[in-house]
């Protein structure tokens, strides 16, 4: 192996090793430590000056107490469950809104498509925080939506939407919509229009042909889109903390508060590890779906 190749592999490898893998192992280690009033606020810390004996004392002090604590305290498992529920429902709503848009884009005349793509991608490049912030002004009691609803006489009292779970759903659907539209559009775009004609010639109704051809062929895109929304939504912090209320329980927010407000690093680390374990299932399924699609493309 020559030097150039060694450098090419070695530099990014070491970088990721030091700044991704090692930090992750530290989280794992701290999740098994105990909270202490000290700097840093946990115990044990590894004392290298005592050599092997020091390491053994350190190793013996690690335990799974924090994980036991997480299962015994209502707050945490409720937060996990409600994050799962919010992420799943929000993903479903995003699909409901995203599919017709992707379908319309795929049906649009060829010369429109680049501009339509641009219009979908542009919000994705615009600051996430700003897009969430935009909804505060719309959903608040004196906000834009309530002004319109009151003006048209649909409601006589302003609707309370901001600081509820509804606002969190709206926020997730709004910010992650491009992630749903793009993969669905890319599968629908490849769809051969003559298949629909064939299905209709063979006696399918229009809706029947739509179901058995369009929806069936779009499935990999739909699955990819759903994972691309579900996975980040599950650990979301910004949306629940800006649009959600005190009753909105999401695990990303719990982790943040555990770390910054309670300063309980070991529990925050244990919360992070469990969240990762929950995420492994959808991530593996997502990878499999991608793999299948790649094989189908070849």
């Amino acid at each position, binding site marked *: 192996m020559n030097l*150039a190749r060694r450098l*090419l*592999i070695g*530099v*990014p*490898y070491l*970088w*990721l*090793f030091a*700044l*991704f893998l*090692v930090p992750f192992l*530290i*989280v794992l280690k*701290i999740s098994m430590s105990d909270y202490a009033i000290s700097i840093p606020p946990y115990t044990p810390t590894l004392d290298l000056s005592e050599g092997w004996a020091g390491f053994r004392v350190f190793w013996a002090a690690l335990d799974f107490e924090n994980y036991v604590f997480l299962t015994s305290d209502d707050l945490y498992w409720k937060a996990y469950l409600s994050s799962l529920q919010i992420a799943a429902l929000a993903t479903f709503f995003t699909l409901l*809104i995203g599919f*017709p*848009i992707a379908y*319309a*884009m795929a*049906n*649009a005349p060829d010369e429109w498509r680049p501009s*339509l793509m*641009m*219009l979908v*991608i*542009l919000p994705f*490049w*615009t*600051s996430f*925080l*700003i897009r969430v*912030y*935009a*909804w*505060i*002004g*719309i959903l*608040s009691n*004196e*906000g*834009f939506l309530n*002004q319109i609803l009151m003006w048209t006489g649909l409601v006589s009292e302003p609707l309370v939407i901001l600081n509820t779970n509804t606002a969190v759903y709206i926020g997730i659907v*709004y910010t992650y*919509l491009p992630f749903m539209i793009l993969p669905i559009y890319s599968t629908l775009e490849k769809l051969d*229009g003559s298949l629909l004609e064939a299905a209709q010639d063979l006696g399918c109704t229009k809706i029947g042909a739509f179901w058995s051809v369009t929806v069936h062929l779009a499935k990999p895109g739909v699955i990819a889109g759903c994972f691309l929304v579900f996975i*980040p939504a*599950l650990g979301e912090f*910004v949306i629940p903390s*800006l649009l959600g209320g005190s009753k909105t329980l999401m695990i*990303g927010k719990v*982790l*943040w508060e555990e770390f910054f407000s309670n300063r309980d*690093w070991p529990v*925050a*680390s244990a919360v*992070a590890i469990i*969240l*990762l374990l929950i*995420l492994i299932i959808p991530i593996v399924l997502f990878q499999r779906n991608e793999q299948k699609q790649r094989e189908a493309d070849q």
Partner: protein
Amino acid sequence: MRKFTWFNAVSLTFGFAFLYIPMIILIVYSFNESKLVTVWAGFSTKWYGELLQNEAFLDAAWVTVKVATISSTIATVLGTMAAFVLVRGGRFFGRTLFSGMIYAPLVMPEVITGLSLLLLFISVGLDRGVTTIVLAHATFSMCFVSVVVSSRMVTFDKSLEEAAMDLGCTPWDAFRSVTLPIIAPAVISGWLLAFTLSLDDLVIASFTSGPAATTLPIKIFSAVRLGVSPEINALSTIIIAFVTIGVLTASISTKRAISRQKRDEQMAQQ
């Protein structure tokens, strides 16, 4: 044949209305005279003026741009290297671990990435500031860059490079004069992606920044928690304008570059 039906037209209209109306409202209210964001009191640009005098925001903006520029440049170099390793690396010890470390940060919740990096910086005794944010941002954006660049490299015809070396180029010359121009659009869009990811990031920056360095998203977040303010609307409008101009320019110029490249390739084949 495919037909663009009225249902399609309705979905597109409502879809894009949903995507764009919130931002349009935000922009409109940044020109509102009143301090109350929800009540229209006439056109004014005074919030922009106040924004320009707000030292804290200007400082944060400068830190943010500095962090984004440095971290996205590091991320582009590392990410392009990683893309080469992924596509052309062949077999080497720990290849699975390597590709795992490239893909994992893409799906890792930001709170976990932030937490883990902070715990690392504390255990090695690195003071939190611009350096730590740069390291954190470079790490997660290099993975995005490597995905963007490697997807371009998969379609790249390796024989072009071999031809250059047969004609007497050193591997480095072949890389510089053949490979780099071909993957350049992907490298540039990788850099832009890394730059915007860094510009935009709140969660990881909050974990890895110290009192000495506050980025714009951290500043916006703490202001927004207190409620809506016209100054933040003005700031958002400026950011939206920058991003829009940047994205449009980049997409037009890459489109031109790609069509020029295609023309060149066709000419070369004739």
